[in-house]
């Protein structure tokens, strides 16, 4: 019985791995093809079945005057906007979550859980609902088509995720740790920064990972709130589409845009298993 269980476990893991890896292999091979190799039927092995070419990749880096889209500028814009917005969201979200987890707030009928729900409710609305308010808001601030404007909007979108994850995380950190820190001579701020925060790194990494993913993949707001001066990667990639769908350069763009997420996921995953609070409480 345990043998069958082990077998099934590995069987499904391998099956799932195939599911995940296959599109990547497909995209990698397609990115090195040209028009003829793509339309000539399914081929997989370079040199044997088709002649590899770098045309798909070069389009991404050539300036517009040479028929390319030059994604380098938008690429760094995307990284800058996503990282800045995620960082601010994590800092604000962690502070808010700690307060919501440890202190009791009451204003009329509004209590801690209602405030937490208010944050999450930002994510319940479909983004379309927010598009017009955001547009008017940014235009009155003069921040349309700017990095600062995008960062502001992304903070609104990402901070609820950070608050949500961190409230749950802090609720599982025993209060007695804070109390012990207070007894040991820390004021409430020192208790947070010297004791609670160093033990919250795993939670913050998870929250950060989610913020980066949701920030990085956003197309809708990047599309609506920017025009020419500032462009983000997802919007720029769409510019590839023309009368003939260039599968080769789209594949290359897809690989380029997913690469940072894969790197981040690998880095974060390594730390996630390391940190735990098992030493705090029996």
């Amino acid at each position: 019985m345990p043998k069958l269980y082990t077998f099934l476990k590995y069987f499904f893991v391998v099956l799932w791995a195939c599911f995940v890896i296959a599109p990547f292999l497909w995209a990698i091979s397609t990115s090195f093809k040209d028009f003829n190799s793509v339309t000539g039927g399914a081929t997989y092995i370079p040199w044997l079945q088709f002649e590899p070419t770098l045309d798909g990749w070069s389009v991404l880096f050539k300036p517009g005057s040479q028929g390319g889209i030059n994604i380098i500028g938008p690429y760094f814009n995307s990284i800058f906007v996503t990282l800045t917005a995620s960082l601010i969201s994590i800092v604000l979200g962690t502070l808010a979550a700690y307060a919501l987890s440890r202190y009791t707030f009451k204003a009329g009928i509004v209590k801690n859980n209602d405030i937490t729900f208010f944050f999450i409710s930002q994510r319940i609305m479909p983004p379309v609902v927010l598009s017009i308010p955001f547009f008017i808001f940014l235009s009155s601030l003069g921040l349309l088509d700017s990095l600062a404007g995008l960062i502001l909007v992304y903070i609104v979108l990402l901070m609820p995720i950070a608050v949500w994850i961190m409230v749950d995380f802090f609720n599982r950190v025993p209060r007695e740790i804070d109390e012990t820190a207070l007894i040991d001579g820390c004021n409430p701020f020192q208790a947070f920064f010297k004791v609670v925060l160093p033990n919250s790194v795993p939670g913050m990494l998870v929250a950060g990972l989610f913020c980066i993913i949701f920030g990085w993949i956003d197309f809708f707001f990047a599309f609506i709130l920017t025009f020419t001066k500032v462009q983000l990667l997802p919007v720029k990639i769409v510019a590839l589409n023309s009368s003939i769908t260039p599968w080769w350069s789209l594949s290359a763009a897809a690989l380029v845009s997913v690469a940072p997420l894969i790197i981040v996921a690998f880095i974060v995953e390594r730390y996630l298993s390391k940190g735990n609070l098992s030493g705090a409480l029996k």
Partner: protein
Amino acid sequence: MSLLLNKISFKPTEEYHLNDISLRFDSGKMYTILGRTLSGKTTLLKTIAGLQTPDSGSINFDDTDFLSIPVWKRNVAMVYQQFINYPHLNVRDNIAFPLKQRKMDENLIESEVQEAMEKVGLIGFESRKIQELSGGQQQRVALARSLAKKAKILLLDEPLVNLDYKLREGLREEFKKLFNVSDESNSILIYASTDPLEAMQLNGDIIVIDEGKILQSGTAKDVFENPATAKVAEITNDPAMNINKCLIQDNSLIMNDSVQIQIPDQLKSIPNGKYLVGIRATDIYLDDQGFAFDLEISEISGSETFLHLRNNNLKCVATIEEVKTYNTNEVVKINFDKSKIYLFEESGELRHSPYQ
């Protein structure tokens, strides 16, 4: 120096967590707060530490108003029932944390930490991570941290309850030694416990608390021999003292239709009427000529056997000084050590103790 609690009350919900508590703790002495779970022990300790503010009452320590001082300036130490340490620091840094917080000289910190680790037997574990220690060792770290502070008030909230039997016995012995050593530093030691045996062994002053109210305080011997009420008698004995309704009439003590004993000499002067009779589990013995009881459960505990017995509406627990296996619903014949019978008024107050 002494710590004075004056009419402390705390009522966050419908029920009192602390109800009009007035106590005096003198430095260099040890106190055990004995009470059941949720009796208010932890709340009392947290109030002294400053983690909780009472609704009314005052706390004075060394002639200063303690309630106006925030937790982090009170200089108390507390060890929790759960093993609370700082998981991101190693053993040495955990113990040094409060001293660093106080901005003590590095060399002094090193020697204080060393001394505290020696006391609790953690030498050699200095750079271990907390997660790599066993439960007992983790609790030693917490204890060492509180000792290193040399706080004027040391609060211990059931520090041994989450440890296994063997470790508990060992650490309790160490506690007693530590407390004797700490006596020289003139600190106040307050130890909360649910275990009567532990309270007796620690041999300090005992404060019995229930539902946030102090029922009795005094020396271990006094509380054990002369419990103020039937409730105290239940809390301070393990298994709880058997308290049953009884009737004294014409020189006999009637517990129910079939269990009636001749009134013992020391109770002869008690007038007829309704009372509560208290008999310790250890004062019940097997006797072939005794009263027949049905056995509900028998538990073997170390070298003793606890028998949960029932005779119609009369229930009692007896401790038999040997290991014996019984069948459930077996009939067991028992008798009571008449010279050790307690008598309480129907309202619960002690009427007669065999030690009076």
